[in-house]
């Protein structure tokens, strides 16, 4: 096989784009692992929620004509809505399903997270059906809700979720430019720029803000941090908030650039992003970013040699190899056995 | 007296830190020996090297005339070394007697097939295990409490159960890591005489790490003092008590001449 540089360069850019998604989602895993030493198994579903809430908001803005008048504003608002929705989901999950288990055996939060993961997938799927049933309730033969309400509510719920695949309106075209012989779409550049700016922002936040310091203290020792006057619960909530918002950002991007979203979309990116987090050294924020891009590139390089259907095998295989040979990841510090 | 355990120029590093530094020690067979030293002096690290939990970078550990460094812990246990932990580490969701029976693992042989088919061999072994465990329970004064989950036992009983579990391995050498930690003077005096009884009745060599000087001085036939990973003194109680280096290590530089009592 002759080495085709143009094709290789295209794949490289492709790898960086995919890597951006992995990196953004991986940050949430790593931050939560950092403060709680737990794997938030439902993190992939938070990413999914971000995509759904983003689409729902975008549709509202299209309906209201805002998208026609000022597409940029509408897109920015879509991102913000998706991030806020995902953040709210993440913080709520932590409060209801993880916080009561903080002192429980290790298995308990993991099972709880699996439960949440299934719940969210199903919630999005059956929301319209559920709405229909509730709206159709009758007391003594008379409908509780006036017919106008029924239609409105069911319409809104159907617009939000449901069994079928949902599709984002095509915002970005395949327009682009040539970099030498390599064609690069603007949309890819936008993904890369948004992701990288966000990640640099996060890194600065964690490195220099009071919150960042508090997060590091909590991850060292919750009890001692509490004695130092740190509100541990608040720091954990804020960690979930930030990590989930990043996943929401990735979710909206996924929708805008790949168009189709569905209730199960969180699973594979979730696992991949976890791999990325481990790859970079779990608990380590720059590590998650590095891991995300490494995994993205490894996948595109892997499918140069293997049929494309084995892309997922590459990721899992890499995960196993990393855990065997360098369980601390690329940037990870030596974890004590307790943390493992 | 020949020595049962010998450490020759043992060195264990953690990164740049010399946790145990060129440490040599001979533990006479049948003795009660003690290692003392300030916190972080490398005492527990030394124990961890002996039982195979850590691999020392340099030096040799000779047990019963054979080098054992580099062997996996379960094999070293099989040779006849048992230990207890500074912070009690029992199998908390198993009963007291089961803890002891697990301690007999190296001396029992039932395979998976025996276990599944309940072969006569297996039944005999199980019966003997239980009888032996009951004997050990009695020996440490826990008769009648064998069917209580380990985590539900009171603190003192947990300490004694841990010793019983260590004895279940029929050790030639028993390593006790701060056995009286967290005990009141009465309990610790009781445990001291129990340790003495152990050696006198079972002939087990005992090497212990201890902070309580009353205990150390009362039972030790040989005391070794570690500071910053190195041996600074060795001898009997009297020699150690009057050794200026030891006083310095414990009380700080200059303390021996009465100038200062702080160590920084």
């Amino acid at each position, binding site marked *: 096989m002759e080495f085709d540089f143009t094709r290789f360069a295209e794949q490289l850019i492709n790898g960086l784009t995919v890597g951006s998604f992995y990196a953004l989602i991986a940050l949430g895993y790593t931050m939560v692992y950092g403060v709680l030493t737990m794997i938030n198994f439902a993190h992939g579903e938070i990413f999914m929620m971000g995509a759904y809430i983003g689409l729902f908001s975008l549709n509202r803005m299209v309906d209201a004509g805002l998208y026609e008048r000022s597409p940029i504003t509408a897109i920015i608002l879509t991102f913000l809505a998706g991030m806020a929705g995902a953040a709210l989901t993440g913080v709520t999950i932590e409060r209801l399903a993880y916080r009561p288990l903080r002192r429980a055996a290790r298995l308990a939060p993991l099972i709880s997270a699996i*439960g949440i993961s299934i719940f969210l997938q199903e919630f999005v799927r*059956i929301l319209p059906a559920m709405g229909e049933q509730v709206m159709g309730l009758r007391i003594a033969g008379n409908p509780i809700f006036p017919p106008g309400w029924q239609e409105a509510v069911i319409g809104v719920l159907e617009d939000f979720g449901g069994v079928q695949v949902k599709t984002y309106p095509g915002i970005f075209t395949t327009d682009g430019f040539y970099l030498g012989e390599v064609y690069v779409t603007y949309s890819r550049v936008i993904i890369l720029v948004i992701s990288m700016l966000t990640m640099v922002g996060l890194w600065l936040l964690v490195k220099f803000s009071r919150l960042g310091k508090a997060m590091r203290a909590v991850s060292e020792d919750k009890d001692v941090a509490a004695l130092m006057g740190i509100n541990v619960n608040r720091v954990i909530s804020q960690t979930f908030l930030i990590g989930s918002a990043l996943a929401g950002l990735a979710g909206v991007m996924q929708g805008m650039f790949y168009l189709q979203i569905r209730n199960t979309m969180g699973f594979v990116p979730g696992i991949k992003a976890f791999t990325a987090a481990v790859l970079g050294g779990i608990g380590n924020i720059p590590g998650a970013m590095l891991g995300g891009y490494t995994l993205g590139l490894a996948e595109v390089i892997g499918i140069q040699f293997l049929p494309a259907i084995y892309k997922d095998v590459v990721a899992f295989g890499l995960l*196993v190899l990393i855990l065997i040979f360098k369980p601390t990841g690329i940037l990870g510090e030596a974890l004590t056995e307790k943390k493992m | 007296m020949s020595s049962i355990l010998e450490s020759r120029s043992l060195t264990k590093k953690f990164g740049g830190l010399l946790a145990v530094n060129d440490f040599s020690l001979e533990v006479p067979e049948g003795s009660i020996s003690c290692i003392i030293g300030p916190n972080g002096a490398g005492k527990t690290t030394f124990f961890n090297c002996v039982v195979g*939990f850590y691999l020392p970078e340099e030096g040799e550990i000779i047990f019963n005339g054979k080098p054992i460094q580099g062997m996996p812990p379960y094999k070293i246990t099989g040779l006849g070394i048992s230990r207890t932990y500074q912070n009690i580490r029992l*199998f908390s969701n198993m009963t007291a007697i089961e803890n002891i029976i697990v301690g007999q693992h190296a001396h029992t042989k039932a395979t998976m097939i025996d276990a599944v088919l309940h072969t006569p061999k297996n039944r005999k072994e*199980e019966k003997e*295990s239980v009888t032996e465990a009951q004997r050990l329970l009695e020996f440490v004064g826990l008769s009648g409490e064998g*069917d209580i989950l380990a985590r539900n036992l009171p603190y003192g009983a947990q300490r004694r159960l841990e010793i019983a579990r260590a004895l279940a391995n029929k050790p030639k050498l028993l390593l006790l890591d701060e056995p009286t930690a967290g005990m009141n003077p009465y309990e610790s005096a009781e445990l001291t005489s129990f340790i003495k009884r152990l050696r006198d009745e079972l002939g087990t060599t005992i090497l212990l790490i201890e902070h309580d000087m009353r205990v150390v001085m009362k039972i030790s036939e040989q005391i070794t003092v570690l500071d910053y990973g190195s041996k600074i003194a060795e001898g009997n109680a009297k020699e150690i008590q009057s050794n200026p280096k030891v006083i310095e290590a414990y009380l700080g530089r200059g303390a021996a001449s009465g100038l200062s009592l702080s160590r920084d």
Partner: protein
Amino acid sequence: MIDEANKLFSNLTRRFGRQTVMIVGILLVIGVLVLPVIEFQRQAFWVRVIGFTGLYIILGLGLNIVVGFAGLLDLGYVAFYAIGAYTYGLLASGQFGIHLSFWLVLPLAALLAALAGVLLGIPVLRMRGDYLAIVTLGFGEIIRILLNNLRGFTNGSQGVVGIDKPVIFGYVLDSGIHFYYMIFILVAVVAFFSNRLNHSRIGRAWIAIREDEDVAEMMGINTTLYKLLAFGSGALVGGLAGAIFSAWQGSIFPDNFNLFVSINVLSLIIIGGIGSIPGVIVGALALITLPDVLRQFSDYRLLLYGLLLVIMMIARPEGFIPSQRRKLELREEDPQPVTD
């Protein structure tokens, strides 16, 4: 009459321990009460539901060895079920024109699965807790992807069809009720052996590893060997269940072996009471039978399932029937389990 029954009961409990007697009792009660109904009405529905519950009990008992006894969190258990199923499927169907006897392939399937269990065990030996969960999850997914994509071997997503029915003394076991009995017997056998293991030198070594791996090794337990033994035994049971599944269904598809099977099995163990054999049975009744019986709520099945996991972890993390240790020091007339 009642006196004699009492005497028999206390004799049995003394001989086998109360737990075993209870397990066998529960099994008999279910079998005796439910069987006549099936015989009378010949309802395929019940044969199917109880048959599946039985298969999940077998899977649960197998995974319980790995997770409950040895404390190794395995989220890829479905892989061994798949290996068992495909071993029989490929060796007794038109796929390759091989038609080996079920009774020959059953042990072979079990052995192959056990071998796979040990092979998976080797690289993940040093991992603990959540890491192990994710790697085994990845392993399960890799097996499913391979089944889907090795078309020449497994026929891909079209699955293996026309799998032979077992023949015993010239009599073809082709109706649901035959498999019902076969599964029933296997449940009893696996529960019985599993209970014996639990209270043996092997079982105690596993539990010691679960409680504190380092100390277990200091007891003279070769933890590497015992962990592999646990992986192997668990996988062996999974392989048995898989072979029966494949003979019963007559056709198998990669999607029969998705992640949700692993999650189901793990959840039923934990809901039932981790490490507890009667717990596995109760867990399977709660998570497999109940949802199947409550068909009218089928829309909400998974949603409630997810919620149940979370609520159980918060309200009763030790499960419905927490595992108990047997009294050994003071054996009385009727040995009682140890209570807290």
